[in-house]
């Protein structure tokens, strides 16, 4: 019956507006940070930093705005599956492109 309880909790858990305000402000701050970072000269690390900040922003939107932190295991698994398949598409396709030898000789 624990799944039933989990389901009811997920359905009834009300996230407090305080959390939303914190998350919203964090998102705005991180937006500023990513703009600032793009003006720095970090070479290849610029792209890493930009993606990292974007991932953090997306994570807090998913966890708090979309309530995944307070959701059932099934919801979390579903989000994971979507992410995993997306990464498989991008990763394996890019692996082909990055290992092509065109133009290197």
């Amino acid at each position, binding site marked *: 019956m624990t799944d039933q309880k989990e389901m009811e909790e997920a359905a009834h858990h009300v996230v407090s507006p305080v959390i939303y305000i914190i998350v919203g402000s964090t998102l705005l701050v991180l937006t500023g940070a990513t703009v600032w970072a793009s003006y720095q000269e970090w070479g290849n690390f610029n792209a890493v930093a930009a993606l990292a900040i974007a991932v953090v922003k997306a994570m807090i939107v998913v966890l708090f705005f979309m309530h995944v932190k307070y959701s059932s295991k099934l919801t979390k698994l579903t989000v994971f599956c979507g992410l995993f398949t997306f990464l*498989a598409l991008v990763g394996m396709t890019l692996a*082909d492109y990055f*290992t092509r030898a065109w133009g290197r000789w």
Partner: protein
Amino acid sequence: MSATIVSLPDQSTARIPKMNFITKENGLLSWLLTGDHKRIAVLYIISLTFFFFIGGALAGLIRLELLTPQTDLMAADTYNKVFTMHGVIMVFFFLVPSVPATLGNFLIPLMLGAKDLALPKINLLSWYLYVAGGALAIYTMASGGVDTGWTFTTPLSTHYVNTNVLTTGLAVFIAGFSSIFTGLNFIVTIHKMRCPGMTWFRMPLFVWAHYAASILMVLGTPVVAIAIVLVALERTIGIGVFDPTKGGDPLLFQHLFWFYSHPAVYIMILPGMGVISETISTFSRKRVFGYTAVAFSSVAIAVFGFFVWAHHMFIMGISNYAVLVFSLLTMLVAVPSAIKIFNWTFTLYKGSITFETPMLYTFGFMGLFTIGGLTGVFLGTSGTDIHLTETYFIVAHFHFVMVGGMLMAFLAGIHFWWPKITGRMYPEKISQLAAVVTFIGFNFTFFPQFILGTLGMPRRYAAYPPEFQVLNVFSTAGASILGVGYLLPILYLTWSLKYGEIAGNNPWQATGLEWQTQSPPLTENFAVTPIMDHEAYDYEWLEKQREKEVASVG
């Protein structure tokens, strides 16, 4: 030991139950605006059959042209259009929706003890999208056709043809959403609407197979949707994303296309495998051997199926590293399918086997799918694929798995559940004949094509060197036999609607919740929500039920 397990009620007194999903409401609108999953399944059966015969007619034209080495029946351009439309219609408008949209829709709520699927209106929307996409595909054919092959390879489809690529692409896009919504509906239903006591490992393997196929539908189809959108943008505005002169890469289209289209072949076959699990158990009177292995192998096929798509692109210009990785992964994906074949075979061992029509189709599936699957190993091995790809070997391979495999499974399922859907039995002798005719016709049609492929005959060519003619003639002869084999069911199944024997609840003495209720079922499926208190394929439980029934009727 009796030669049949069929157990029908006394025909002199039996009647179709007065109240069932067919008689519940009358009038065309009650069908066209229904939310009842069973009615939607029937709508799909009718429209699917229509598209199958159009695709089949196109196949007939292909085989007619290939009787002679010259392009004499039709111009080469026309031939290109014929095989393209054959592929588009058969893949997107027949095979992908076949078992899920008909049998899946009808049976999944019944098998789970639910009243309907989770989202009935979305289910109806799925059917309308299917019909809309199909109508658009027919329109395309009528207005000049498309000749790129069903794979729409770039840059041919974006830059070098002025045929109806856009309308066909739109038709496929729309049909794709039909598929997505069906899969979505199944996943939600299976997770959230099982009756009390129906744990995951008590569900029929048919449901597991559809669950795995639905995951593929939901995650894979959107990628081909975006691929089509990009082709449309490339054709209309010339954005350059697939255009080498603007820096684009035509292979990108293929990556996006096959990312869906490889899982699509598993979308097509997994539901068929689900049917086979049910029929093989029923006609061996035995629980499926290794239930857990079969269930998990369905999911494994779905997962691994996402990682092998570039084996369709070995010769197209991907890197050697990619060839290596995708070839290795392709070897992996064959394993779960093989596991199923082994498990089904072990189910037969020491079972009480009878040879009703669904079982004949099942045996056909086992043999032909195995051959098709084994030839897939030659194609997954990049070294041999270089020689066999784009030849008739590929054509034979996928027809063995799709026609010898999937279509046979579809027919097995239609015959197996026909009594449940209609309340009537089909005529056994002629249907067994049709199954045998189909099997013979199939082998004559497609086995020569393996030989043609290894000898070097290319696919998608209207003309070929004269030394290949004998085998092509064999193949066309087989196709005409195959056509008879497919025509017969239409005739006798229609006949059975009026004249078939009354089937009763459980003519096959099968386990499974769908057989514990009337045929045809009530609109709400069950008068009382069932409680699942036994394992799947529990024939002892079934015996006890029958004893109780006999005792109480007295």
